């Protein structure tokens, strides 16, 4: 890299982590209190979130500054790469839990409730849910949440798929541009990516509103509603985060922080973006299509 030093950079001391811990504490203590309708819960929640945002800006700002000043050698750079890679892997496993729930409900417990399968499944249906037939999507024999419509794959979800796939392509174009040292196309491709990301989030919000108001499809719509909203919801949250990160990267690009060789912040954001993309493909197939 553009560094004069060969030593591995070890910061003297770090003040941001403790700010982060306190922020997290306020944030989630507040959230828990809010969930229980305790006083100040909501206020604490927002205060904690603000502290966290402040911390992120401080922490990442410091890292960016150090990076600019050439404190990081190639070895530091690969530490960052490794960390980002395995962080994304941990996120994959987080989604795996929810996909696991979806598969389990669809292939095991759903049919058992419907009387298909051995070891008491027939009796489950006969004794507890006589007359209940299992078909996906379901809100269970209790009809939890009342009748609802299934979210089709055509329309918004399909458009969203195309948007995200396109954004993956524009992101790659941005990468090629920076690698070739073309700053302006880089910023423009980034802008395209970020815009597509935000449009995705906007359309997803539309979809939710439609589902709630016109289809009676809510979080309370049994296991279908549960898996639908948690999977797409956490994904949507990740898209939002990814788009914000890319936006920050874009601003830094405008301020000329990156070079053809040194642009890991962008690469990390791009990896994240592709991960979000791939998760969406999984969602599109398993939540919407089949």
């Amino acid at each position: 890299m553009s560094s004069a030093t060969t030593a591995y950079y070890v910061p003297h001391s770090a003040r941001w982590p403790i700010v982060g811990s306190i922020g997290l504490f306020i944030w989630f203590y507040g959230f828990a209190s809010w969930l229980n309708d305790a006083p100040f819960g909501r206020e604490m929640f927002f205060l904690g979130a603000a502290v966290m945002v402040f911390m992120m800006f401080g922490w990442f700002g410091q890292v960016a500054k150090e990076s600019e000043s050439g404190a990081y050698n190639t070895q530091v750079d690969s530490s960052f790469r490794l960390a980002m890679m395995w962080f994304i892997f941990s996120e994959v496993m987080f989604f795996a839990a929810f996909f696991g729930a979806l598969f389990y409900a669809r292939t095991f417990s759903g049919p058992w409730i419907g009387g298909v399968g051995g070891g008491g499944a027939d009796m489950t249906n006969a004794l507890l849910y006589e007359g209940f037939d299992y078909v996906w999507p379901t809100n269970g024999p209790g009809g939890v949440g009342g009748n609802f419509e299934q979210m089709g794959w055509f329309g918004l979800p399909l458009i969203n798929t195309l948007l995200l796939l396109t954004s993956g392509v524009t992101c790659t174009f941005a990468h090629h541009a920076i690698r070739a040292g073309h700053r302006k196309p880089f910023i423009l491709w980034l802008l395209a990516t970020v815009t597509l990301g935000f449009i995705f989030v906007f359309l997803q919000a539309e979809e939710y509103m439609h589902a709630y108001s016109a289809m009676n499809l809510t979080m309370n719509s049994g296991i279908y509603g549960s898996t639908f909203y948690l999977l797409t919801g956490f994904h949507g949250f990740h898209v939002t985060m990814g788009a914000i990160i890319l936006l920050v990267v874009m601003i830094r690009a405008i301020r000329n922080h990156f070079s053809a060789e040194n642009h890991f912040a962008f690469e990390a954001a791009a990896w994240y973006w592709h991960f979000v993309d791939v998760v969406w493909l999984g969602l599109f197939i398993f939540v919407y299509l089949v």
Partner: protein
Amino acid sequence: MTSNVSRWALLSLVLLMMPLGAWADWGALNMPKGVTEISNEVHTLHMRIFYVCVAIGVAVFGVMIVSMFLHRKSRGHKPADFHESTTVEIVWTVVPLVILIAMAIPAARVLIKMEDFTDSELSIKVTGYQWRWRYDYLDSGVSFYSQLKSEHNLARQQGADVDLATAFPGESFNGEEDVYLREVDNELVVPVGKKIRFLHTSADVIHSWWVQDLAIKKDAIPGFINENWARIEEPGVYRGKCAELCGRDHGFMPVVVRAVPQDEYDAWIADQQLAMASKGDESERQWNHEELVSAGEQVYQANCMSCHQAEGQGIPGMFPAIAGSDVATGSIDKHLSTVMNGVEGTMMSRFSEVLTDADIAAVITYQRNAFGNGTGDTLQPSQVQSLRTGMTADNGLTLPSKVASMPELNSNTGVN
């Protein structure tokens, strides 16, 4: 230093041996053989793997101890330099694998046998409740609840100050005699020699119906039915427990199975059918105040005391007092609906299906007059009954059987 080590080692060995003196009866330290073919096979399997494990332990620890004795620096042993041998690595991968396969085959055989639910001759649905069991004989329509017997329930209260050994005399380590916490008000009666199918489910949280002598343990999952079976060979009383943590009184939901010859069983069923028919009459007839209070005391001790305590004083911060309670001295409607419907989101559960109309009337009358509440009120079973029919009709409150099978576990405020 060496002598120091061996002195400590010797001392510890001696101390370790000391508890062995307490081994009055080997059998009681081990898994019982049980009274079904399956339980016997499980026992054999258990002993076999136990001996294999002991043998492995003796071999491994033996080599270690020999080595620790011979190859110590204080004896002047010089270290060898070997640190690799593919041959031995292969040997001690393959040998354990072979041992494992030898264990897995009989285990799989027993397991397959256990899971064969075909050709049952009798079906009993077993439903777990916090903290009692409900048994429904699907073939004869007999059904009842079964819970810890009230003497035991009294004795196990915090600060009950009962000398358990005198109150429940029995031989330690002689399974059958020791009955503290192992007796219920209504036993599950079954015939010997029949393949009985148990269908397990639960009305609230997960429980697990376990009778060791039958080698049966199966979770009772709310909203699902699990199958299980047993063919009991000898008449007798077999005791078990709930084996899955199910809340505060998980330790106090025993199971008692009484296996009897077929003719005795038939007679018992007939009795039960008769008794069930007459239960209706109990609700219909007029009771007098004293009758209700004394019946109510029984119901209270069996069902309510574990939380609201013997003197109705409750446990501050956890369970409200009944003595002087606004509910138990105020509107009788509120009182009745508290008991019948429970309080959503708390441990005060819904008693409308667990207790009969007579029980409910009795316990409410009792609570309103005992513990210095002295309201003088009397609630008749017939009033409860009319309310119940009314309840079902006008606001769709669930019928007993429906509640048992389909708990509403999904409210926003949590279960119950």
